[in-house]
């Protein structure tokens, strides 16, 4: 029972972690809470469904194309809605992000209608039992794909030139640009990377719940954001830890038959963590400038 819930929690948590990475990377560099990120995840899920049902594509091809589409979308959103606001107040950028999220939600509602759409059966979903634990094929796929993506992200950030530039920009934006780093390119790349992970998360979650809807990004986006804060916003391992932590906490709440309170769990945890460690579990302390 306990191990069973662990598996369910890990599955849920790894999807939160995938989306949380986008929040944390963007925040790490430009200190913007990108409220449109949950909508990118939603668009990713819809693009995946469309590619599979209309063009009869293989699920993996569909997932890659959906990631590529959202990469473009992320870059375009940054250029139109955030770049002109880089020098104005952070609240203005925040309102702009909320505007983008309303725009994407209503655009998708216009195209698709408000009703949810069924995600096609792409796998024969069988249940495997390992000892007392039962795990479904889709759960295995979610765990493997999200681990691979997170590993890929870590390698990109640790060992590539652009990854190094990202780390430099998140350390000190101004100095990085003085050192000859094209900060605009780094920011575009960050949005592209984060959006593609969100799209993959969208396709995986759509596959898991077998349906996608125009408003699916709202709650999940908010929880992924909470996961990013829990882990310490700006920290990539923190986002992964926060996502898994949140997934487990939520699954155990449901297992304890308190499922009507499951949406409150994330936020209660958030407030408790913020009160004792305001920068999150793995976050660094901010220096007050006098």
């Amino acid at each position, binding site marked *: 029972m306990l191990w069973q819930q662990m598996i369910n929690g890990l599955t849920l948590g790894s999807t939160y972690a995938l989306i949380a990475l986008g929040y944390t990377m963007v925040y790490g560099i430009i200190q913007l809470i990108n409220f449109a990120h949950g909508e990118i995840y939603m668009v990713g899920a819809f693009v995946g469904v469309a590619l599979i049902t209309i063009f009869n594509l293989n699920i993996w091809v569909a997932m890659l194309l959906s990631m590529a589409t959202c990469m473009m979308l992320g870059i375009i959103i940054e250029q139109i809605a955030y770049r002109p606001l880089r020098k104005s107040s952070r609240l203005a950028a925040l309102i702009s992000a909320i505007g983008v999220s309303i725009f994407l939600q209503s655009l998708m509602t216009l195209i698709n209608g408000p009703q949810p759409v069924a995600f096609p059966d792409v796998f024969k979903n069988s249940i495997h039992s390992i000892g007392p634990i039962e795990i479904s094929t889709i759960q295995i796929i979610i765990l493997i794909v999200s681990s691979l993506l997170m590993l890929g992200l870590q390698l990109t950030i640790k060992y590539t030139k652009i990854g190094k530039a990202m780390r430099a920009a998140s350390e000190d934006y101004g100095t990085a640009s003085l050192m000859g780093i094209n900060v605009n390119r780094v920011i575009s790349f960050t949005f592209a990377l984060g959006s593609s992970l969100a799209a993959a998360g969208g396709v995986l979650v759509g596959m898991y719940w077998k349906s996608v809807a125009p408003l699916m990004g709202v709650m999940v986006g908010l929880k992924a954001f909470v996961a990013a*804060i829990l882990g310490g916003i700006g920290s990539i391992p923190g986002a992964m830890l926060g996502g898994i932590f949140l997934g487990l906490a939520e699954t155990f709440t449901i297992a304890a038959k308190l499922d009507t309170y499951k*949406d409150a769990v994330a936020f209660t945890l958030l407030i408790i963590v913020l009160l004792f460690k305001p920068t999150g579990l793995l976050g660094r302390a901010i220096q007050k400038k006098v």
Partner: protein
Amino acid sequence: MDNILNSIINPYYVQVLTLLGIYIIAALGLNLITGVTGQLSFGHAAFFSIGAYISAIISLNLALPFIFSLIIGGMTAALIAILLGFPTLRLTGDYLGIATLGFGEIVRVIFTNMKITGGATGLAGIPRETSILIVYFIVIVTVWGMHRIQDSRFGRALVAIREDEIAAESMGINSLWYKIQAFAVGSFCAGVAGALYAHLLQYLNPSDFGFSRSFEFLTFVVLGGLGSIPGTILGTTILTLAPEFLRIVADYRMLIYGALMVLMMIFRPNGLLGGVSLRKTFFSGKKK
């Protein structure tokens, strides 16, 4: 009065204008917290909903006059703001915003699960006590009160905290205490507005008070111009009436609304009336 008005103007417009007044009261409260004191709050809808539910429950269960349920609704919101403020107002900037966002969602979930609030089905049959006259009377009182606050020693201390908290502290301002007071007053306004809302619509549902409602209030204040009373009123008016006018293009209404928010921030990042205050414009004849 309402009956006379309703016979002259379309009752639907009266309803929209009354709602507008209610939103102005709540937005002015948020303006004190975010605009004047500089504390990011994503949980304003929570205080709005607390005022709404408390006053509705009082009206339904006790035979108190409307004015009492209105004041108790506001006071409860203010009290909870003080209790929440002590731990959370030590957080700065985004972290405070996120904590208040979390608080707002918790309040919504609690209202969804309580029996006395009608749970997820909502609370119906609240007596209709709110009229356009009462609402605009309270709007005028709020504007006057906010103007007095901003113009006082207390208000200047709040602005000092917004501009530089550490410098304000070193000038002898007890910033936590001032922030809590501002938070309580702002939340009181939200509570009163919520109580008016409950007695106007006669029906409450917890899903109406999610974080998107909080963002809506924040948008009103930011669009109008942070810290500016006329700005807050203008921002609320534009954003409340815009969806009504956009009904002609009903299907594209929210699409345009979202795009408008982005465009306005790009072309007017400080809000429409950023930096404009009542005192500077109307009372001393000088513009900043």
